[in-house]
């Protein structure tokens, strides 16, 4: 009679002293992992960017010289919402009266900001010297950039307003792959 009771007791004791702490620790560890890996779970929001009104046609020079415009929008950073912030910028150029092209200023190589070279006839990235023609095409064989500058969709509305679909693309790869907005 004593024997089974003792063994049952010792089993209960073992359960209490081993399994319970292990279980508790495991559940805590699981919760911690869940919190830490949270940035991975918010991945599904990969949507197409929205259109922003950037400027008016008459502000674009007719000779095709690209001009940089800021994109202003609300920006969420963790617990803060910043209203009307400069969230990025685009290069816009016009050829002829309404043929307007836009590119992301973010370099497809490493995401630095592409600038217009001082002689105004090509784009250049200050970080690793990626160079692009004025139409966004890569220049030269030793170009660090894996693809041409990222072209953005443009719409002319009301005959004079220039709207651009502002999007980000993953840098460092040869395909143009959309990065979701957080």
């Amino acid at each position, binding site marked *: 009679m004593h024997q089974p009771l003792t063994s049952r007791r010792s089993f209960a004791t073992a359960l209490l002293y081993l399994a319970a702490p292990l279980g508790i620790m495991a559940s805590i560890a699981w919760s911690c992992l869940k919190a*830490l*890996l949270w*940035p*991975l779970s*918010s*991945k599904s929001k990969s949507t197409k960017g929205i259109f922003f009104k950037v*400027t*008016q046609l*008459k*502000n674009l020079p007719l000779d095709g010289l690209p001009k*940089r415009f*800021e994109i202003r929008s609300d920006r969420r*950073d*963790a*617990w*803060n919402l910043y209203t009307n*912030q*400069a*969230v*990025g*910028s685009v290069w816009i150029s016009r050829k002829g009266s309404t043929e307007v092209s836009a590119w992301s*200023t973010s370099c497809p*190589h*490493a*995401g*630095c*900001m*592409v*600038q217009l070279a*001082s*002689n105004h006839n090509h784009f250049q990235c*200050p*970080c*690793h*010297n990626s160079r692009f023609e004025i139409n966004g095409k*890569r220049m030269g*064989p*030793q*170009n*660090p*950039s*894996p*693809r041409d500058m990222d072209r953005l969709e443009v719409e002319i509305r009301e005959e004079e307003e220039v709207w651009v679909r502002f999007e980000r693309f*993953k*840098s*460092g*790869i*040869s395909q143009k792959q959309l*990065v*979701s*907005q*957080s």
Partner: protein
Amino acid sequence: MKTGKCWQEVLTASMKQLFLFLMPENDADPRGWRRAIWMLLGWFFLIQTLTGLVMWMFYSPSTHTAWESVFYLQHEIPMGWWIRGIHYWAAECMVVASLLLLTLYISSIGSAASNHRSYLRALWITGIILALAITGYLLPWDQHGFWSAKIRTHIMGLTPVIGSGLERLMLGGTELGHYTLTRFFALHAGWLPILLWLGLRMGRSPTPRAKGLKDSMETENGFLWGAQSWRCGVAIVMGSLCVGILAWQPWAGDLEGALRGAPLSAPVNAAEPYPAARPEWYFLFLYQFLKYFPGPLEVVGAIFIPNLILLWLVFLPMWGKSRIGRRVNQTILAFLCLGVCLLSMLAIHEDQQNTSYLRARKEADGEASRARELAASLNGIPQSGALTLLLEDSQTQGPKLFAEHCSSCHRYDRHDGRGLPVEEAPSASDLAGFASRTWLRKFLSPDHILTPAFFGHTSFKDGEMATFTTETIASFDTQERQQLEEVIHILSAEARLPAQKHLETSDAAWRSVDRDALFYEVGCTECHGFHFEDEDLDAPDLTGYGSREWLIEFISNPSSERFYGEQNDRMPAYLEEGILNQEQISLIVDWLRGQ
């Protein structure tokens, strides 16, 4: 005599305790320089823990408090700059020391003095020390740290399969922000130091047996006279001296002007390019290396080759025991060291030749010191953060806006506003010193008005003002010249330029002159209005000429009736056409006026 002896004993005993504490004892190589470097690393770890814990009490990790709290520590807290300086430079020295340790180990692998386990520990702590440096650089949330972290997490994201997940985990989202800072801070101040401590302690046995240590440290003359004690002492003293000198920067001049201790660049501005971005010196070789992997090959240079080298580092002791294996390892090591040195030198050399980088560097330094100057001038940084100080500062933004929007026609002291020469000839006047006495004197001189610095390349070169200057003013007699000079004084005073304030208060002679009569006599009011309105006059109104209000209204719409009307050459109406907003125009104007 007794107290003297007692002192000596206390000193020896405490030094011994310190050495024993710093030293991983159980390893096979109890003597030599490797041991001394281990001890130095332990010593630095103590320093970093102490200064780090103190800095923790002043630091606030969020995107609009990080730079601000670091600035406050650096500038306001007594000895704050010194504590930060020690922490910063001890970190650099730890990187050097751990790399040196690793090289010593690799070159001795296979020899009798080698020890596989302590080599792996050295590899481990080198990794942790580099990770500590990388996470630490972001914490001040300044331009330099921000762009370094951005590029590094991007490179991490290139890793096949797991890359983008890894990048998100590091950033705490898709972009650098609050969560990147909180993550990096927790890693830097919590997780990584624990791992480093484990790395430094792991070789220790629980009881301080330390036979080898005693052998090498204790001679018949006492503990401190052993050769190993001497080596350890030299390492610690030299290491600390290096840190102290680098943090104190005796060459930096007075404390007020220069930022001693550790560098702090401008607060992060992610919306603008930062062409001065470069990695720290010990990663320059990797930066240079990546230049040789164009386009889609980047992943090879950034991920595959470094990981191959890492694999070699981990497994090299396996074949290091054989003679051939040892030779192979030593050859690879020599090649790597040579390659790293060469690539670093190339990177520095290329940057020195790169004028646009050098200029960007100068501009970034200027912005950093301006940010600190603005933050220090205020009785507290506004809640929106130090970046807004820079964004609302005409001295910072004026040149940039001028270069972007005005310099295709105008010049500022013959450059584009930021100090860059412009290839094309100017097609409108040079606006440096606009409306000052000097500027007006030149403008109203027959020798200058038709030069490119004024009307030379504008449609006004054949206009009435040009004719008036080249013909009428050219034929002025002495008395008329005197009157013209008075006109210049009166007109320039309209601008109320800060730089001329002392002139205008000191020579008050022109105040008593009847200015309406004077302007009429000289001939100005034939075309220009001056403190009166007349709709028939089509030249720009001179009332308040060059003042803040006048300039803002002019730039907003030069074609308005008050200014050029239909005679406007090519200047756009910046406000009306939506090219610039009111704040941006004010920034340009304030900068032009030197406010």
